[in-house]
């Protein structure tokens, strides 16, 4: 029995939160402490299982599970590789923190339908880990579609007319993306006869440029929607109507990163960097990503609503990763992989802070935050750390990923993208740091007494802040995120960087 579970760890990691979702739904609101304990147990178990596979993956082992055939010759199959486990590790770790934060947030705000909320959140995590560990495109599509559908109840959680309208928009985007993905998958299956991901890619130039471009366009729509690449991003800022824990975990870490992760799988494991460069698709992808970075940063400057500002910041930062992948240079890919983790840690910190401020004081707008640092110093300190991290200041994780992205841009000879990165770094500082200075250096009669949100919220905030700093100072500590990023680059491009300081 134990052996069976150990051999199928990849599958267990996916199923554990699906089981938790059922348990949560059956337990219900009246026994809410029991209900919450299912979520915590599943989150801890999921992280533990994923973490236990890290040393093996770094040593070159690939944990595989073949479930059953779902189309003649095509299996529902799982395979744990560096790219998958990097994403799975960050998502499952942050789910633990988000769970506690969400207990505090949902109870503090007296939200309705909490059972439904926690059940669907757990389903989303199952789907996300499924995406991480999918061994082939069909399995990937399956989990990607489940994720799309499972997010819908969370987007319309508020139950207002506006929420339903946004829910409809979300569905149209998500279903279109899903269908585009299916179409692209069919084209590949028809042309190549296989859908298994292979590090370095499995498509061949002989398939014809026209077909390869058609495939690329399908996948660009399929992944671009979730990754918030402009001009197909507009569901993302609207989806911020969901409760803040959803914005934090799904719309900064899990769902949107699933789109970004799709680009990693597309460039690194389907087309392969060489073919992407040869047909010119990489350049197109890079231009879209670069444009998104700049535009999103400018739009973020104009937003007074705190969550909207963070949403556009997310749109921009997701495209950092897409750009890093599209530049095709090993260093840029390293930066992109690492930015998946650092951005997750920093952005979730910022969203946690925004949610704590809202639940505790009812303030949603940047212009209302004068002097709030005196009332909630810990929260706003964490916000400051996340902000400087996103701007790329050393000693916070964002610096390291941006460093490699910039180095990669130089390597690739694409100096214009180096310019994009620098300008957007300044813009990042311009739209985030004034919030911090306003909070600490201005005074307001509303915020004089020291009064933090509940410990259920402040402790997760403190932990994500520590994680952000840890990634900047010891990028390879505990979780081995940096080694995993290097392993991704090594398996896709064959380039190794040697030991990191």
């Amino acid at each position, binding site marked *: 029995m134990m052996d069976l579970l150990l051999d199928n760890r990849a599958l267990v990691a996916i199923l554990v939160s699906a089981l938790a979702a059922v348990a949560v739904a059956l337990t219900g609101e009246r026994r809410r402490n029991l209900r919450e304990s299912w979520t915590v147990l599943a989150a801890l178990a999921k992280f533990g299982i994923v973490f236990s596979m890290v040393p093996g993956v770094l040593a070159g082992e690939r944990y595989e599970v073949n479930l*059953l055939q779902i189309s003649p010759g095509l299996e529902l199959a799982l395979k744990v590789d560096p790219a998958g486990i990097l994403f799975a590790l960050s998502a499952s770790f942050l789910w633990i923190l988000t769970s506690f934060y969400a207990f505090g947030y949902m109870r503090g705000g007296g939200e309705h339908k909490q059972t439904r909320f926690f059940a669907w959140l757990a389903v989303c995590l199952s789907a996300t880990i499924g995406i991480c560990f999918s061994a082939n495109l069909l399995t990937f599509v399956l989990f990607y579609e*489940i994720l799309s*559908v499972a997010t819908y109840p969370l987007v319309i959680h508020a139950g207002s007319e506006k929420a339903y309208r946004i829910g409809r928009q979300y569905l149209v985007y998500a279903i279109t993306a899903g269908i585009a993905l299916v179409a692209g998958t069919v084209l590949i299956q028809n042309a190549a006869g296989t859908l298994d991901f292979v590090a370095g890619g499995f498509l061949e130039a002989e398939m014809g440029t026209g077909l390869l471009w058609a495939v690329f366009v399908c996948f660009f729509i399929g992944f671009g929607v979730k990754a918030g690449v402009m001009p197909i991003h507009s569901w993302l800022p609207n989806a911020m109507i969901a409760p803040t824990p959803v914005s934090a975990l799904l719309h900064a870490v899990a769902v949107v990163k699933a789109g970004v992760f799709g680009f990693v799988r597309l460039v690194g494991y389907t087309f392969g960097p060489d073919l992407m460069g040869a047909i010119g698709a990489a350049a197109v992808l890079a231009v879209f990503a670069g444009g998104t970075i700049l535009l999103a940063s400018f739009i973020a400057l104009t937003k007074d609503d705190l969550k909207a500002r963070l949403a556009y910041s997310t749109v921009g930062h997701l495209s950092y990763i897409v750009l890093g992948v599209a530049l095709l240079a090993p260093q840029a890919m390293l930066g992109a992989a690492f930015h998946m983790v650092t951005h997750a840690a920093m952005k979730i910190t910022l969203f946690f802070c925004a949610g704590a401020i809202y639940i505790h004081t009812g303030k949603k707008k940047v212009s209302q935050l004068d002097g709030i640092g005196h009332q909630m110093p810990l929260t706003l300190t964490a916000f400051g750390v996340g902000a400087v991290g996103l701007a790329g200041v050393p000693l916070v994780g964002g610096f390291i990923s941006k460093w490699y992205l910039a180095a990669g841009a130089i390597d690739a000879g694409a100096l214009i993208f180096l310019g994009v990165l620098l300008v957007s770094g300044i813009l990042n500082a311009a739209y985030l740091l004034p919030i911090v200075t306003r909070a600490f250096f201005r005074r307001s009669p509303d915020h004089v007494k020291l009064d933090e949100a509940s410990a259920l919220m402040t402790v997760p905030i403190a932990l994500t802040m520590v994680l952000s700093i840890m990634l900047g100072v010891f990028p390879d500590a505990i979780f081995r995120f940096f080694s995993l990023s290097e392993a991704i680059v090594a398996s896709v491009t064959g380039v190794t960087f040697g030991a990191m300081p």
Partner: protein
Amino acid sequence: MSQIPALIPTSLLLASLVALLVGLKSHRAAHLIALAGAVFAFVCSILGLQAVIQGDGEAIRYAMGAWVPPIGIEFVLDSLAAYMVTLITFIGVMVLIYAPRSLALETPGRQGMVYPSMTLVLAGLVGMCLTGDVFNLYVFLEIAALAAYALLAIGDRGAPVATLRYLLFGAVGGGFYLLGVAYLYFAAGTVNMADLSMRLPELMESRAVIVAAVLMVVGLGVKMALFPFHLWLPDVYTNAPSVSAGLIAPIMTKVSAYAIIRLFLDVFPPGFFTESLPIATTIGWVSAAGILFGSVLAVAQHDYRRMLAYSSVGQLGYIGLGIGLANPLGMIGGLLHILNHALMKGLLFMIGGAVRLRFGTTKIPEYVGVGRAMPWTMVAFTVGVLAMVGIPPTAGFFSKWYLLLGAADAGAWIWFAVIIASSLLSAIYFFRVVEMIYRDPETDSAVADHEPREAGEAPASMFWPITIMATAVMAVGIFNVLIVSALLERVVAPLGG
């Protein structure tokens, strides 16, 4: 074992006859007899299916009254027939279990007539699938059709007129088909399918055979409600009782599609529908038009049943596209969609009836709060919707998957695009209902007040068939390879590898 092909239709015919007599006294007894007949036929179908799979697709033949063909009538149970009769009898059993509570509400006092008609429809449909000659196919087609007219006409106020229109269309369709059979008989001198497939290759140039093929396909196309012959369908399904719609919408039109596929694959020579005559391509193009037409009109509907009816017009097009593609993958997609759509549409019509029982409405805007009142039924509904949209791993995804693979293989990019576009449209019209049922009637101000007739889930006799159907929609999706490799790959073998 060798009697199975004959046992299935005769047991249903017998049940129908007895139920008719008993039904004059007690509709409860009629229900039990009809159900017993359907269960018996279903068990026989399963046994036959097992025998065919174990026999590597070898057909089981039965000559009626020991009169061997071409003089006598032959029943043949091969992979395709076994697939169809298992589906038909399964749906029959489910709907018969479901029927009493719904009929008591929607057609009070007339239930005694419904059960014999239902079994007669089933008898006609399984007969069409099992018969070994093209003329008897016509006989069973008309048996099923006449019984179906009766079932459909007892519905709401508009039902008789709608059904009369169906009858006119059906009579024309049946007439065309019969005329085609006559031409075929004149040209080839036999109506036995196996004999025809031997003799027709020499007669491929014969005008009579060409005319026969066209007449038969057009006739069946009308019966199948293939665009633009679908005009009878929306009114009929909208006004019919939930039970009749739940029985007829999933399987009736599909069996005509089956007949076209049977003619295409097993009666006429290989290439006759594709190279000699552009029949398959024509079916493909009208189906593509039907998919778009049905999906667009479904978006505009406010009545749940009418929406399902237009959705059916579109979904039948998928089966037609499978025929049109005329390659193994496409045909597998079309055949699989016969099963998938039967399960999904049957499920959704049954749920409509359950909601009507509890809430007294079929209008989508009045579905607010149903999700809270009937949570498990609405989980089943959501499964049905996900399948209709084609979200994996539900059954609906895989028929589209094979159809798309087939379209890519054939380079049929317009049809490829049509399938994609219609998935999006069906997402729009189905998720609208999902949004409505999960709205909260207490906090939602945009909602007109209405009280449920009775709170709670549907009664057990309706709840369990719904649950089983929803489970089947998931199971057929996840385990579709079993069906494809054990049955459908054999069926499409005439199309070549």
